């Protein structure tokens, strides 16, 4: 047996993964790559979840409501200590941007894999962050200098900035607590709705207002910073395709970012990171206007949902970098020297009904089959048999492709979406195929209002009902004779087909 001293420095004894779903699985995989054991936590609703099975060990931490499980800081830290975990990775969402979490980890002597509570607190409060960054010389969108208290303050600020305006949660992210207001008469109700959503999502109803830039692109820069003073950016991601202010398709490089704009924005991103005294992985979000002008929006102090596209074009494992940086190591040489190669696109697979206003869809996944092939990656938190509940965010998985150029990446993604089969709950795969195949998308005219602008009148798919009935009939023939009872057979003549396929690959179907 090799002596411990001869091995490369052990990063951590064991990492508690304080999340669920695809990001928990993603973090567990990075830990495995680095040889660090993992502990998953789960609520009673998730006892059979994929992340629970993926980790080396798993501990139940409470009932389904997030406040009693995935948001319970004291319980999570106590669980880490009881199970000899010396580090916690928060993933994204839940506690990932709650500065009390790193602070309490520090008190307990557990390493938080992410920034300090201090820089998280600064950047997490979007209002404070803007004040600080305007001082550092980073361009900002006109709007409120502080959070609004009264409706009169909002009205005054909106009149000054000019309609349309955007209401945002100070503690926000992910589109929650966010509203666009086109006319003064809608302002009051939107502020109230944004406050309610913010209160629910972040337990903080502070909202503010800014001018809404029309025809903008959402461009963000990935940054890494270590404890040795190295700060780098790993190029941009364009995340303009959004519905209800939540990203659904992301890509890199952006068709709108020229080498000169990339240089300027990259420099600004590094400047923001340094001004925030930030350590670990982060993302600097900008709006890019038609004329190449860009405005700092906010910094996300966590690993992003869309981090894989950056990994595809740079070859850097961002979660592994997070873990190494938290252990006090330098940013790896390969990341320091990373270049941008090829093109990558990510589609978020949400449990939602695109044909019905993107309403969340819940239920049991009856059939699940992932696409595969060169340059195709699936980060998933679900599989056949997974029950998708209403308690948590409806993101199920992410499909990521890599190709030499944008056109090929688009084709590859369309084919992969067609091959990605999820039955039993609604997902927006067809909607994303239609976006990717749209001439305006192919032409790169991807502004943040792309979906409202281009995807209003989509054809009904009812003309496929006949084919669907034909396929259902074929499926019924390949079922065992016993289970055809009650399936609407007018004649029950046994055919050789009825003896085929008495079971289904991938999962058992329980009644």
């Amino acid at each position, binding site marked *: 047996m090799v002596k411990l001293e001869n091995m490369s420095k052990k990063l951590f004894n064991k990492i508690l993964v304080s999340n669920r779903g695809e990001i928990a699985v993603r973090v567990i995989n990075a830990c495995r790559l680095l040889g660090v054991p993992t502990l998953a936590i789960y609520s009673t609703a998730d006892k059979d979840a994929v992340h629970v099975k993926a980790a080396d060990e798993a501990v139940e931490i409470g009932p389904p409501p997030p406040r009693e499980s995935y948001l319970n800081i004291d319980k999570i830290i106590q669980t880490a200590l009881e199970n000899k975990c010396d580090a916690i990775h928060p993933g994204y969402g839940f506690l990932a941007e709650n500065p009390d979490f790193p602070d309490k980890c520090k008190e307990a002597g557990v390493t938080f894999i992410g920034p300090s509570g201090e820089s998280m607190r600064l950047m997490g409060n979007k209002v404070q962050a803007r004040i600080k960054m305007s001082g550092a010389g980073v361009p900002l969108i006109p709007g409120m200098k502080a959070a609004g208290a009264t409706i009169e303050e909002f009205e005054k600020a909106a009149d000054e900035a000019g309609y349309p305006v955007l209401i945002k949660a100070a503690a926000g992210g992910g589109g929650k607590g966010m509203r666009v207001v086109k006319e003064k008469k809608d302002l009051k109700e939107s502020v109230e*709705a944004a406050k*309610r*959503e913010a209160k*629910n999502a972040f337990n903080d109803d502070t909202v503010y207002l800014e001018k809404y830039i029309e025809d903008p692109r959402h461009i963000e820069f990935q940054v890494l910073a270590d404890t040795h003073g190295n700060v780098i950016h790993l190029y941009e991601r364009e995340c303009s395709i959004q519905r209800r202010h939540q990203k659904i398709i992301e890509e890199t490089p952006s068709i709108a970012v020229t080498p000169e704009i990339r240089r300027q924005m990259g420099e600004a991103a590094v400047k923001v990171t340094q001004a925030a005294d930030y350590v670990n992985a982060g993302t600097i979000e900008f709006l890019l206007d038609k004329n190449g002008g860009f405005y700092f929006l906010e910094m996300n102090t966590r690993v992003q949902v869309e981090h894989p596209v950056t990994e595809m074009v740079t070859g850097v494992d961002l979660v592994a970098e997070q873990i190494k940086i938290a252990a006090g190591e330098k940013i790896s040489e390969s990341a320091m020297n990373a270049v941008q190669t090829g093109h990558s696109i990510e589609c978020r697979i949400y449990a939602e009904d695109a044909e*019905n*206003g993107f*309403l*969340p869809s*819940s239920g049991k996944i*009856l*059939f699940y*089959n992932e696409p595969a092939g060169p340059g195709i990656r699936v980060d998933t938190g679900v599989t056949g048999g997974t029950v998708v509940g*209403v*308690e*948590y*965010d*409806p993101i199920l998985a992410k499909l990521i492709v890599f190709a030499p150029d944008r056109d090929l990446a688009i084709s590859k993604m369309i084919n992969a979406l*067609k*091959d*990605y*089969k*999820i*039955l*039993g709950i609604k*997902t927006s*795969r*067809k909607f994303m*195929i239609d976006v990717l195949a749209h001439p305006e998308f192919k032409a790169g005219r991807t502004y943040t209002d792309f979906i409202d602008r281009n995807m209003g009148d989509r054809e009904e*798919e*009812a003309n*496929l*009902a*006949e*084919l*669907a*009935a*034909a*396929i*259902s*009939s*074929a*499926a*019924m*023939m*390949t079922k065992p004779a016993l289970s055809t009872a*009650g*399936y*609407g*057979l*007018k*004649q029950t*003549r046994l*055919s*050789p*087909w009825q003896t*085929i*396929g008495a079971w*289904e*690959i991938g999962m058992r179907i329980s*009644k």
Partner: protein
Amino acid sequence: MINEFLYKDELIETSVEPKDGRVEVSVNGNLYSIIPAGANRFSVDINGKKKTACCIIKDNKSYVDIDGVLLELIIPSEDGANAGGGAGVGEKDKVYAPMPGKIVKLLVKEGDEVTAKQPLVIVEAMKMENQVNSPSDGKVKKINFADGDQVDTDTPIIELEIAE
């Protein structure tokens, strides 16, 4: 073999015959030659273009994916009763929550005149607020819940009196 399916209130009858490793299905006079491709998967040629499909049958529903397009067909039970559809399908005078959740805000009160697509209630589920719109023109006859109540998908939140 004859099968029946319901799709959005439309009855579709199919006639099925296995043939040379394929399944030939006739629907409304159109013939589809379907190739089983293993594990609930099928392929079919439509006007020379190949489509890949996937299908699973559970209880009284058939879930079908054709190149990413999802369709759910109801399989009527043998006594002819339409067991499927769940609450609310096709009902123009009742407003249901799209999924179990909490009522954030009722936007109308009993007696209010409403128009089709007018927002009636905001329901929160999966941390998002979802606006539920009126299915038709009419008058609010009855409201069965109040702000803050938990709702399921079986009891109508609002009942309407439909305008003639």
